């Protein structure tokens, strides 16, 4: 069976749960410890897509202030990206547009999936669905609410991205 390779990126501010999402998706488990990514962390996940296999090479980029320096080279050639915010931190919401625009500057055709992570922390949630709709309005994109801890919508997020890339 033919195997198609695609490079995708995980983007988002510090500690929004990017690495945890990848771990849940790739290794199907969740590490409670926070692992600060330095530079880039590489993962690979194979999806069965009907008549072919799709290999996602997932680049987990360091978030935060270093993005402006190290980001562009890592984003080059990415077929798509998952941009993550932390539903318990309002300040991570505005970064969604920043990362999306940055990626589109480099890869105009890149597919994007937005994610509000940590849906399991219901009591601490500070970003509402309305906030997400307003923030993503200009980007004309929908979003998914995920929990790396429980695994909710994690697989669906990557499948959505695969659909967009191959759509």
């Amino acid at each position: 069976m033919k195997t198609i390779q695609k490079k995708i990126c995980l983007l988002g501010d510090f500690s929004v749960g990017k690495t945890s999402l990848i771990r849940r998706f790739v290794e199907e488990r969740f590490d409670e410890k926070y692992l600060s990514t330095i530079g880039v962390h590489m993962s690979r996940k194979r999806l069965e897509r009907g008549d072919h296999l799709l290999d996602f090479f997932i680049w987990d980029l360091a978030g935060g202030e270093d993005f402006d320096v190290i980001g562009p080279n890592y984003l080059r050639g990415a077929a798509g990206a998952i941009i993550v915010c932390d539903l318990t931190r309002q300040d991570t919401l505005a970064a969604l547009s920043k990362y999306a625009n940055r990626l589109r500057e480099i890869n105009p055709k890149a597919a994007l999936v937005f994610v509000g992570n940590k849906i399991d922390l219901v009591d601490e949630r500070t970003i509402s669905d309305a906030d997400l709709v307003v923030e993503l309005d200009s980007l004309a994109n929908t979003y998914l609410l995920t929990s790396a801890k429980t695994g909710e919508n994690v697989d669906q997020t990557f499948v959505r991205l695969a659909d967009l890339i191959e759509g």
Partner: protein
Amino acid sequence: MTSPPTQGRQPDSHQPRQGDADLLRAAQSILFAQERERIGALEKEIGARQDAEAQIAALQEQVARLEAKLKETERRQEDHLLDLQTSISILNYKNFGKSESLLSRLAPVFSRLIGQRIEEDRDEMAEAFSPIMGEAIRTQIRNSRQDMVDALYPIIGAVVQRSVADTLREIQRNIDARLRRTSGMVWRSLRARLRGVSSSELALRDAIPFSVRQLFLIQHGTGLLLASYPAEDRELSSGMIGGMLTAIREFARDSFGRGQTDTELDEIQYGDERIIIRSGQHVYLAAVIGGVEREGFHAQLNEFVSELHVQHENELRYYDGDPDTLPPLQPKLAQLIERLTIAVSDRPHPLSRMQRWLVFIMGVGGALLLALACFYLQFTIALFPLAFPGPSPTATGTLAPTLTVTPKPTMTPVPAATAAPMAVPTITPSPPPTQTPTATLTPTQTVTPSATVPPSITPTATLTPTPIAASMIGHVYALTEPKLFTPRAGLVFKETAVVITAVYDTWARIEWADSDGVHTGWVLLKWINLREPVPASLVTPTVVGIP
């Protein structure tokens, strides 16, 4: 007295009465009905005509207005045309008269158009511009060399710097390789010892093997693996290597490249393995090697990458992860690794400096020896006739070595004479020698000299030609020399058996025997009945000493 005028008026007898008037009106209406109708019709006709006239007048007025307007328009157009012509003249003067001004005005427009076109279809623009790029660059260099130098310096400088660095590394490897190859040489050991390297360390250094363990072809940017050889059992790790290598290279470029896009990581060492990276425009080749690579290894990798880009530029550039869009790359990697391996194991090693000197000296010595041999041979050939002069047809000291008749002392050595042409045995008389052993006749017996010949003379026949037997076809006087009017050597009768010992021109030297013994003399060939052709060895084309 009269009545006041205010009284009531009395009926006038001359005025018609009311009834008459009605009658009159009735009669009038009856009598003038037709006229009235005609009058009405005429009135209507008049009204219609008046309306038509009014419309005509209105139309005429409208036409007049239109004509006026048209004239006004024409006048305006003429004015406008004049204005335009004036403007064009001014523009021509301003723009065409000053092409630089025109260029400066049009340049932004063209730049924008070209930029837009490039954005829309980069490939098409590249195709369109490519034929003239070389000429354009040459023209630009010719016109403004310094500008081009300034523009290209950052690129060329980096390329030169990289090339020089590569060359230096190659030189280092070359020196290293030569050091390894000169094993056993005292000189090398001495050099190693001078540098504090022991023999065992030197041997260890020689023992370090070199191998190409794996090749990876990876796309820039995405880090997607296009092909690898040998194929990894663990497909996952192969795929990840591409991404990780790319990430590491990007990290190195960001961290150490100081913003320069043309500097990149080209070697990674991990334990006893090294990853040599050679980059092309769209993909790069990573070779995992062990040991110290030989000289020319990097050049081969560079050549492979360049050739790959020349052959499959579009496929490499637009690769999006679908393997169906790629040419078969794994066989190419297999061929490359085979070439590299063969080159490493079987390729003849370049000679060291000392070996080259030895080869050079041996070559020069061999050439000298060959030249000397040629000279000696030529010299010998040239001096041979002088050292060993040829036979003279005037020889008088003759001998018939093949005959069995008891020889008589007829040999009369003449000091000045030379041997008879090609048929004189070697005779070394003492005192003075009279013959030179150059004859070709092979005598078969040893002639015992007579009393007139010193007993010490022992002819040693070394002649080889075989005389041929013949017979005379007439009675002929044999002469002492192959020339008419020379002294006679004797009479030879018809049908006498003779032996031809030499031939000169039309003459043959014969030997015959009779009761008086063996005689020798020259006769014309035409008197001899040849039973077989005269062999070339008996024929003397030039005879020394013939008068």
